[in-house]
């Protein structure tokens, strides 16, 4: 290795930012970009790293991003920073762990008023598992409610980090940025790999581009990669010839080579993101590494739901849209399915509920397809009497009870971090959701981690809403998958006007069937508008009706209002009404609005 190269490697600092949603991660990233003059003020759109509209709107980061920044330190030396952005939600914790694995250090951003939250904690643990140097940053110190001393204490008590050097910052006001940059140089170690060893590069993200194929974001751990190299994906053995190598500054800059410690991208006419799985190792096909980097896992969907176009004529558009999204989202799965009630659609698999929401919203927004989403379902493992077993992700496909020997459902280990005052409420909720108490961890004088094993389906249902409302928003939740367990589950069908609507079927625990049935029937009664005839709604298990209600017939909708000569107003009203009808699905002879299909799933606390 040349001296030059050695020196360059010693000046590289790779880091991520860990923060709870809203604690100011994106704003801090913007400040760092500004301070390193990666972007002029004029180019600076607030929160430059969040590329997609949806991300900016929801204030969360879905797609990872990495930038190379040049920082001229006050000592006159020039450093190369790689800032790797991470998604901030439990659905994407594997991706977070892989992007952390691409770093040597992390900034831990904690809100000076709100303190450490469960999600932050989870990501800090991921960072510690990856041996990262962590620099605590207490943000929003300019808020009136800021209490940095308390938060410092919390970081020490709860996480066990030394917070005495924590930077007091306000990313919004630009306070503390220089301190942060100095600590990055002083505390985060330079990358240590051997540039002459066979190539080992970690994939932490990939993005499909219509002209260049998949753009693979990598961190080089050992060796180097150059244009013209033949690379090999170690998970599936596929090989590709590298066409481009480069970095984002954040403007795209092509380079000759990426060497140890570099974070950038390669393109190689790769057709599908399914060949560039996050966590996989890229090596050189002619001189391969013996072992891939540790930690690779293939992510499987946890949550399934049916997606149907309201307008059946748009089935092909939906297929195409899903195909386009899949190009960029290797965790999204879909396959065609048919519903008697909804016609042709797709059963789609997601990493979690947020992932599901995001995909639905993108389909509606970017592809203008009005969708009906059925209630999400987990995957059940069903053992049949004949000894075979099936996996069921669509409640309507649950075999008849008489054939079933046993149903298993996925469980999670859920950690609820709550102020001590609400421990009782949290435990009561977990108990009610069929939870099994595991343990409690007393974090400090004020807070406790309550740990339960819970069925995933209960977490999906309304757990989070109730948790928030019964702890005044103070509790936070983190969970990880914890295998399957046998449960006393039954399929509940919903009948509208005497006809079973397959898209409304749900799997429920026997013990809660009556309660759920009643709630669903009442909710549907509220959501389905009156029709020109009376519509009975029933919930049934097998042949047995367990709850019923009736939507009365529509009696009057004529507008007996004085509009005078304002005909355009009358017209708008009728057009709006017609538009509303278009967003309904005719199920048999009943017009059912979109939301009703989610009703079996989304119940507010008071229902």
């Amino acid at each position, binding site marked *: 290795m040349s001296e030059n190269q050695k020196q360059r490697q010693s000046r590289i600092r790779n880091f991520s930012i860990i923060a709870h949603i809203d604690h100011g991660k994106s704003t801090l990233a913007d400040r760092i970009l500004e301070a390193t003059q990666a972007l002029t003020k004029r180019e600076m759109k607030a929160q430059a790293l969040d590329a997609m509209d949806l991300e900016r709107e929801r204030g969360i980061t879905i797609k990872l991003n990495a930038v190379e920044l040049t920082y001229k330190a006050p000592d006159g030396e020039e450093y190369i920073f790689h800032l790797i952005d991470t998604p901030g939600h439990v659905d994407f914790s594997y991706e977070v762990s892989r992007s952390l694995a691409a770093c040597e250090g992390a900034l831990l951003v904690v809100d000076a008023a709100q303190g450490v939250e469960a999600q932050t904690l989870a990501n800090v643990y991921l960072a510690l598992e990856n041996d990262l140097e962590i620099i605590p940053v207490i943000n929003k110190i300019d808020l009136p409610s800021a209490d940095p001393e308390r938060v410092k204490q919390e970081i020490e008590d709860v996480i066990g980090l030394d917070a005495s050097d924590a930077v007091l910052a306000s990313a919004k006001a630009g306070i503390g940025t220089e301190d942060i940059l100095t600590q990055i140089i002083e505390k985060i170690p330079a990358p240590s790999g051997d540039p002459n060893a066979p190539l080992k590069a970690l994939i932490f993200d990939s993005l499909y581009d219509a002209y260049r194929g998949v753009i693979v974001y990598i961190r080089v751990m050992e060796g180097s990669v150059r244009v013209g190299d033949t690379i090999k994906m170690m998970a599936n053995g596929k090989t590709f010839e590298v066409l481009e190598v480069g970095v984002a500054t954040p403007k795209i800059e092509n380079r000759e080579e990426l060497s140890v410690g570099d974070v950038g991208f390669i393109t190689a006419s790769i057709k599908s993101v399914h060949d560039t799985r996050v966590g996989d190792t890229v090596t050189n096909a002619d001189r391969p590494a013996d072992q891939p980097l540790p930690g690779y896992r293939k992510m499987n969907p946890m949550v399934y739901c049916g997606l149907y176009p309201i307008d059946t004529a748009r089935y092909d558009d939906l297929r195409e849209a899903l195909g386009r999204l899949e190009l960029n989202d290797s965790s999204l799965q879909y396959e065609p399915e048919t519903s008697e009630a909804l016609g042709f659609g797709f059963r789609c698999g997601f990493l979690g509920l947020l992932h599901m929401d995001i995909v639905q919203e993108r389909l509606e927004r970017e592809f203008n397809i009005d969708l009906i989403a059925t209630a999400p379902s987990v995957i059940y493992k069903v053992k049949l009497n004949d000894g075979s077993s099936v996996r069921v992700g669509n409640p309507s496909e649950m075999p008849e009870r008489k054939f079933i020997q046993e149903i298993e459902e996925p469980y999670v280990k859920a950690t609820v971090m709550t102020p001590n005052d609400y421990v009782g409420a949290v435990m009561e909720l977990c108990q009610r959701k069929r939870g099994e108490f595991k343990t409690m961890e007393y974090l400090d004088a004020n807070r406790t981690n309550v740990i339960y094993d819970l069925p995933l389906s209960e977490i999906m249902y309304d757990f989070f809403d109730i948790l928030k409302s019964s702890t005044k928003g103070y509790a936070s939740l983190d969970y990880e998958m914890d295998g399957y367990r046998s449960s006393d589950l039954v399929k509940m069908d919903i009948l509208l006007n005497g006809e079973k609507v397959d898209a409304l079927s749900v799997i429920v625990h026997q013990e809660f069937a009556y309660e759920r049935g009643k709630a669903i029937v009442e909710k549907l009664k509220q959501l389905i508008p*009156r029709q*020109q005839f009376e519509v009975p709604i029933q919930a049934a298990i097998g042949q047995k009706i367990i709850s019923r209600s009736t939507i*009365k017939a*529509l*009696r*009057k*909708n*004529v*507008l*007996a*209002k*004085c509009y*005078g*000569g*304002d*005909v*355009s107003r*009358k*017209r708008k*009203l*009728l*057009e709006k*009404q*017609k538009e509303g*009808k278009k967003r309904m699905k005719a199920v048999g002879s009943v017009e059912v609005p979109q939301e009703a299909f989610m009703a079996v799933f989304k119940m507010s606390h008071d229902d």
Partner: protein
Amino acid sequence: MTINPAKVRGAYIHIPFCDHICYYCDFNKVFMKNQPVDDYLDALAQEMSHYAEFGLPQTIYIGGGTPTALNERQFERLFQTVRKYLFHPAVKEFTVEANPENLNEAKLEIMKRYGVTRLSIGVQTFDDQLLKTIGRAHQSDDAERAVRLAQRHGFDNITVDLMFALPGQTESSLHDSMERALRLGTPHISIYSLQLEPKTIFYNRMKSGSLRLPGEDIEADMYGQIILELGRYGLHHYEISNFAKPGFEGIHNSLYWQNEEYYGMGAGAHGYVNGMRYANAGPIKKYIDSVRKNGHSRRSEHAVTFEEKMEEEMFLGLRLMKGVSIDHFNDKFGRPIETVYGDAIERLKKKGLLAEHDGRLAMTQRGIFLGNDVFGAFLMS
């Protein structure tokens, strides 16, 4: 735009001033205090002269707001202007809206003098408690007094405006109101159901959850009760919200339903002239400024397409109980109605919402209640 005088049948003149704002009202209106009323009347005069050049209307309707909120001097000026530009002896109907609390002898005398033939009196209900609830400025006795006073001044053709589905209104209160209206012997009653519209006090109350409205069932019961009770008294139901003794149907309003053209004058007024629907500027100052500048104040103009015209023929025409003449439709649009609306008509007939009699398509009793489903069926896209 150029105006084809033969086509324009009516003139609507809007007086946007009120000395009191009712809780449900979403019409273009402002508190009268400190408003440039005289400038407004000047602008109206200019606008009338602008349109009058293109031909005189057969009906005139002055509405609001509250036309009778004008003081007597302003009131008389308004009528002088109308006489100067629009009025002529062959006018078939000249209606003015009046509020009970500010209709007095002087104003009645002025209207009589200037040829007003019909008064529309905003009573809304004879239930004093309800009048307060909906923010009206008058009480039931004022309403009776106003109607009787008008009758003594020789106004026989009076219509009383009533409302139903008001918050807290009961069927017996509605019954009493209709009875008191009927006892006054007016040949016409309009009865509108309360609609919550944005930017009204009621709407805000509804949003905050503090407004209790009768539900759809009570509203439907009330509507049925209205049709029955007024019919029994000999006021026939000729439009969704309108009831009249034979020969006393509102001519001006019927122009709207028959898809005819009309001038709209005044701030926020809507007009339909030469195939163009337009809306005037709403804010008083904007209206005045643009009339001064252009002679008119048309803000949004929309050339009604052939399709839209057919749609409007149907969804307006079917508001009338006599419905739409099939021959008239075929002649007007040069194509048989079945080729345009065959499917919709068939569907509605099958559902029992529409029927055909004597060459006319009209809503059935059930259709009247579910009128929005009927009207909506005639929108093409």
